[in-house]
């Protein structure tokens, strides 16, 4: 009984440690994030090439970042602020398109692809091996089996 407990000790230690880390992460509260910058990262700088408002140093981006700051100070929610910019520039301003008809393929394709690949994999794994084994004639098959048996026997005879 004691030995078994001792053998389990490393497992228990790992499980306990993992639970502590997970609990701290879940219950410790999210780290304070800078809402203004986070929102800036979700909006596209309208005058740049694929840069976010937070990353760009163009005048337009700086003005937009300042505007986000004002709205945050006024107590707007993240959603309201994003909507505010969408109303002005259109969906194009969002770097991560909302889930709607036009961008449905973008969001649905990855999970569908993953499921498809898993299914294909399952089929590949369970499909009866075609190829070599089937091509062997009955005589060849017998010779192969006896050769394998011979090999096994020799392996066992070896000191």
């Amino acid at each position, binding site marked *: 009984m004691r030995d078994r407990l001792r053998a389990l000790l*490393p*497992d228990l*230690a*790992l499980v306990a*440690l*993992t639970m*502590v*880390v997970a609990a*701290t*992460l879940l219950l*410790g*509260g*999210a*780290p304070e994030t*800078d809402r203004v*910058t986070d929102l800036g*990262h*979700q909006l*596209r700088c309208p005058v740049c*090439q*694929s*840069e*976010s408002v937070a*990353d*760009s*140093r163009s005048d337009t981006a*700086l003005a937009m970042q300042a505007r986000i700051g004002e709205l945050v100070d006024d107590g707007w929610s993240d959603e309201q602020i994003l909507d505010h910019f969408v109303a002005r520039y*259109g*969906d*194009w*301003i*969002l*770097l*991560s*398109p909302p889930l709607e008809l*036009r*961008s449905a*393929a*973008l969001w649905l*394709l*990855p999970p569908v*692809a*993953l499921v498809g*690949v898993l299914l294909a*994999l399952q089929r*590949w*794994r369970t*499909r009866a*091996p*075609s*190829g*070599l*084994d*089937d091509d062997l004639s009955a005589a060849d098959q017998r010779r192969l089996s006896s050769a394998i048996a011979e090999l096994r026997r020799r392996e066992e005879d070896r000191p």
Partner: protein
Amino acid sequence: MTGVIGMTGLFTALLGAVGTVALAALTAAHRPRLRAHLRVAVHVLVLGTLVALAALLVALLTDDFSIRYTAENHARATPMLYTIATAWAGLEGSLLVWSGVLVGFVGLLVRQVGRHDRLGLLAVAVTAAVTLFFLTMIVVAANPFVPVDPVPADGPGPNPLLQNHVLMAVHPPLLYVGYIGLTVPFAFGIAALMLGHAGRDWVARTRTWTLVSWTFLTAGVVIGGLWAYEVLGWGGYWAWDPVENASLLPWLTATAFLHGAIVQERRGLLRSWNVILVLLTFVLTILGTFITRSGVIASVHSFTQSEVGPWLLTMLVVTALASLALYAWRAHELDTGVRLDRPLSREGAYLVNNLLLTFLAAIVVLGTMYPVLVEAVTGTQVSVGRPFFDRFAVPVGLVLLAAMGVGPLLPYRTARPREVWRRVRPAATAGVAAGALLLVVGVRHPWVVLTAVAAGFVLASIVGDAARRRPRIRGPRSVRGSQLGWWGGQVAHGGLALVAIAIATTGGLSKTETLDLEVGDTAGAHGYDLRFDGIRERDEPNRIVREAVIAISRDGRELGSWGPSLNEFRNQPAAIGTPSVRTTMTEDLYLALRDLQPDRVTLEIIHFPFMWVLWAGSAVMMIGGGIATAGRVVARTPRRASPTTPAAEVVHADA
């Protein structure tokens, strides 16, 4: 005159390419005597390309503005280093350099191909056919040697961003070698399909070529990130920009192939899948070339501005369709009938790796091409940026990372779960402990902690593995080569774990502060005191550098002065900002200019903890690639072994 010489070189190369394709194909079609003529054709191809490249360089170095490329991309004031780099800074020149690298690969490949080596001969034919395409495109649609009349006295010089940092002279050639080198594995893939056989010889050779390209590609991608960090000044190194994605895509599938190839060499599994991967990798390089050269991404409407766009699009469609058709027609001949015994085995781990890497590549293709497709079909514009890519890439990346710690501990064929757990447990404990340590230190960012757990697990698993099996230095070449291959892989894994840690910490823990300073003012940011000492102006031949002198001190101790600058290039309208970075062992302090007036400056100061780990980890990855490549060279069995003697059975390092 240089124009005429360059054109002569191009046409000579074209002739050589046609000859190489025809002679390699004919030699493969059981006419071994033609092998001697093939050598001549390749010499003509190499010679012509060298002449064209030399003509381009001479035109740039001698300020010969009589040809279009120099007139449009060069200026007398451009310094020597950037004049040479101008050869790949513009569209036409970069395509010529591209062809030059490809011709180099044809030359290397043909040296290893004997007269009866049909696989190799067909690979030469395919590589040369791709070369032929690029040379034709250059001559017809992107010719740098078109004469200009009247000859201008001076030109505008290269794009300011491309002559602002010495890395620009290094990054493109490295990336090209990696990117273009992937043509050779593709050629072997096509050759295998044509011959209906992808056996031991095929996978060994394809793997070596991919490994070399992969190492260069890694270097090119990372140095591109370093360049973005040091030059662009937005305070990052990766933006999921289409051009960056273009370089990442083939890297992902090539990495998948490098793993799939091991399974094939060991167990004969995944033959046709590996062929798909090398074909896909090449199609992705062409897609990347199309994205970066056609101007299709900035907007669909700039499509017509570039003449090479339709060429590359045609090439993309033809390559993809031809590969697919050839595969559909011949792939069944490659199948060995070997199947996976158990999912919980080394093969299973490699399969997971391949699945996730291909899935990641699919996500990146989707996110990159979606805006283009939507705009082409509906005419409306959508943006797909970092939030989309991060949402998928971060979780998939973490699973990949964790799999990297488990995979190498699994035995081939089948594993008992209890035994696997016993092997994995110490490393897993170390990983979780690393995460707990971070929490104790006060880091609460979930992704950073999770990455630390996964990366700590991988690193501990590698160290434990190294302690368990002692590297064998003696033994036949094949054993030593196999050992080097294994350790190269482990070193590359360790490097990637470091890179993952760095990506998480710089992404999750970096902080930005903005300071407004008048001359003589001091203000604090991230625990440092920054003083604006005024502007220093430097007149360089190609640019005027206006540098804000910022003295940094901490607790009253002067640390020196840093100079983020604005660079005005002659003949160019907009000034380019260049950040200035103070790097120490624990952090980077990144100073970027927002606004610079004679008496005041607006600075953005970003604090990146342990930034150097990113570059160090990448370097470790490249070293791993180098070690594995060395292993391939050491283990190489004599090529002209008679077909009746079976290849020596390789004793592998892994248990």
